[in-house]
């Protein structure tokens, strides 16, 4: 069965510092890959997605992610975080396409220090 691992439950970063959130998937084939952000009391918002092509994907809010097939990873990055980036971040995968149900990781809680 497909699975998604986000190794870091919590990450604390100083405002203005760079950020990398890790995501690994277990799958026989390359799945469709997504990163979502969830703020308290809010729904999940899509940051970016990877289906094929260029392995470096640009998303909203200054985020990017890099797909590495050899490492089965899809890590999320941002060069300089803002206090408003504090939220829960979820990596998700789908085998047959984005229309399939998504399999989510357990999430990484991002804390921003002033």
């Amino acid at each position: 069965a497909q699975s998604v691992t986000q190794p870091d439950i919590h990450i604390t970063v100083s405002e203005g510092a760079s950020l990398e959130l890790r995501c690994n998937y277990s799958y026989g084939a390359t799945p469709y890959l997504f990163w979502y952000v969830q703020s308290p009391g809010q729904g999940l918002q899509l940051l970016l997605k990877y289906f094929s092509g260029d392995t470096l994907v640009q998303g909203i809010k200054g985020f990017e992610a890099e797909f590495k097939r050899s490492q089965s990873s899809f890590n999320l990055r941002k060069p300089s975080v803002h206090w408003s980036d504090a939220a829960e971040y979820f990596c998700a995968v789908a085998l047959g396409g984005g229309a399939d149900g998504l399999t989510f990781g357990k999430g990484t809680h991002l804390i921003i220090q002033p």
Partner: protein
Amino acid sequence: EAGVVQSPRYKIIEKKQPVAFWCNPISGHNTLYWYLQNLGQGPELLIRYENEEAVDDSQLPKDRFSAERLKGVDSTLKIQPAELGDSAVYLCASSSPGAGDTDTQYFGPGTRLTVL
């Protein structure tokens, strides 16, 4: 454009009582999903609809959970009877395969259920 609408936003019930959640997807989205999100966890798919048809309900606990999407638009998820372990956030999402933003699932704000 309105997003995915869910109601109620919060619900508190006693165990063994029935409860229902309602979802209105984005206009024109023919695919609708219900997810369950436990505290500190990622969402888990319960059921996926393509128009009126439930095409994936393998994770739906059918002894107490049911769902419907009669006219291929709005959907209702029901629990009867509710158990303490059902306390969670129930998320609805929709997507429109074939549209410009293909295969992106848009999520509603969720319904937070507390079972006492």
